[in-house]
């Protein structure tokens, strides 16, 4: 669950990135966050990861009160969240298996569990045959699938996808969102940030619009198909 109450962020250069934002995404929801670049979407994500702290307001993510969470303990929060980024953020010196397994290794998971869980998650995103490939040998869509597998492997409560389709062609974009929807159907909360209104209209559902650091729209929109 994600909850922001009266959150404001002003950067040291005076930019008012978020202004009195109040927002709640419940467990099991799928929410699109849309807005132009510079509207405050990135700031919102940085807040949820505790990369930055707000100037005022209260944020709760997966039961963590971010005000009370020390920066040095931020990894505890991050382990309950799966991330998917526009630029995939895969480690190029590791193959698909190791990229996905890294998350489990870093939390000291038992070796046996890693050996079962990682191939299973990779097969979920349909990359069974590319396990030993390196990111540079994969297409953009495939790389984003690896990133999805990595986000899923630790069975997170929440998945945050930051422009996951930004570098992909329309068909691949649809595939990725369908995968996210499938993950959401299994109970994981998904928050997808995007500026591609076409895609949002196509899938529909809860849509939150941010403009100039303020929420200007937060409601359900219907399917167009």
């Amino acid at each position, binding site marked *: 669950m994600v909850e922001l109450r009266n959150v404001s962020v002003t950067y040291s250069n005076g930019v008012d990135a978020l202004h009195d934002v109040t927002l709640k995404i419940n467990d099991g929801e799928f929410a699109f966050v849309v807005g132009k670049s510079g509207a405050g979407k990135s700031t919102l994500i940085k807040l949820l*990861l505790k*990369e930055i702290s707000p100037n005022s307001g209260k944020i709760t993510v997966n039961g963590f009160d971010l005000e009370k969470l020390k920066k*040095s303990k931020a*990894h*505890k929060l*991050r*382990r309950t969240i799966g*991330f998917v980024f526009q630029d995939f*953020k*895969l*480690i*190029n*010196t590791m193959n698909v298996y190791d990229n996905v397994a*890294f*998350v489990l*290794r*870093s*939390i*000291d998971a*038992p*070796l046996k569990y890693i050996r079962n869980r990682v191939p299973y998650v990779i097969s979920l995103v349909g990359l069974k045959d590319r396990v030993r490939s390196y990111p540079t040998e994969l297409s953009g869509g495939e790389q984003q699938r690896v990133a999805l597998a*990595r986000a899923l492997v*630790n069975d997170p409560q929440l998945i945050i996808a930051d422009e996951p389709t930004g570098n992909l062609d329309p068909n691949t974009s649809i595939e990725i969102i369908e995968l996210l929807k499938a993950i959401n159907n299994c109970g994981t909360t998904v928050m997808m940030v995007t500026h591609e209104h076409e895609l949002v209209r196509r899938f529909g559902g809860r849509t939150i619009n941010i403009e100039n650091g303020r929420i200007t729209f937060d409601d359900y929109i219907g399917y167009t198909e």
Partner: protein
Amino acid sequence: MKISSMNYLFKQGMKNIWTNRIMSVASFCVLMVSLLLVGFMMLFIANINQFVGGIENKNEVVIFLEDVSESQIAAMQNTLNDMDNVSSVVFYSKEEALEDMKASMENADDLFGYVEDNPLPDAFRIRIADIEKISGTLMEINKMDGIDSIKSPTDFINILTGLKSFIGIISAVVLAALVVVSLVIISNASRASVDIRKREIAIMKLVGATNTFIKVPFFVEGMFIGILAGITAAAVTALGYSELVKMLSQDMTLWSIMSINGFIPLKSVIWQLSAGYLVVGTVIGALGTVMSTRKYLKV
């Protein structure tokens, strides 16, 4: 942390050496050259000190005596022996002196036929332990009875002591400068090798890895490169130093003066030096890389 995790991190560190092999080789070379520079500088200084010390040990003060009785001579010898700064006392009788003189003037045997009474004085030849305190010791000896005169290489000793402190200061400065330069170069090299992987570090942090988990492979990597650099530096020193000594003792006249006292033999220093290389190499290698990661761990 589980053994399987430690195992993974160790392997990861070793793998990183290969994955980033160009930077690994660069770090290795920088570290090894730095160790060698400092090591050879230390050997050079040690040899200079040994050289100066060798000359110092050859110092000799000759004390000429008045015409004194044998019991008085024995008493004087005891007094000299008891002095702190006197390392050896040898009695040199006038008969010996005359024999030596005859021997050194082989062709003048006839001349000595005219000498009825030995005109040479009895003497003590003493060595001074700490050459810097020689003036005090000479004053003390002067107070004794039965002394005619003292011959000591005071000027030479003054030059030598001056030279020694000069060498001491210069070598300390050069060594310090060398250490500082090495550290700067090494820290830049390891920073560069970490810089290349800042994206990787940022990703690891984002997916929830702790700082320790990220640092361990860097630590392993730096340590291993450090150990390799230390071993190589030791091998290069062992080979290079003995070759250098061989070359210098053969060819150069300047150095052959030094080789009278002998260069410090490799055997007596190589183990300490190698141990030093290994410890310093490992510590600097490991700490250098780990400290360079800090900047990127604050995400």
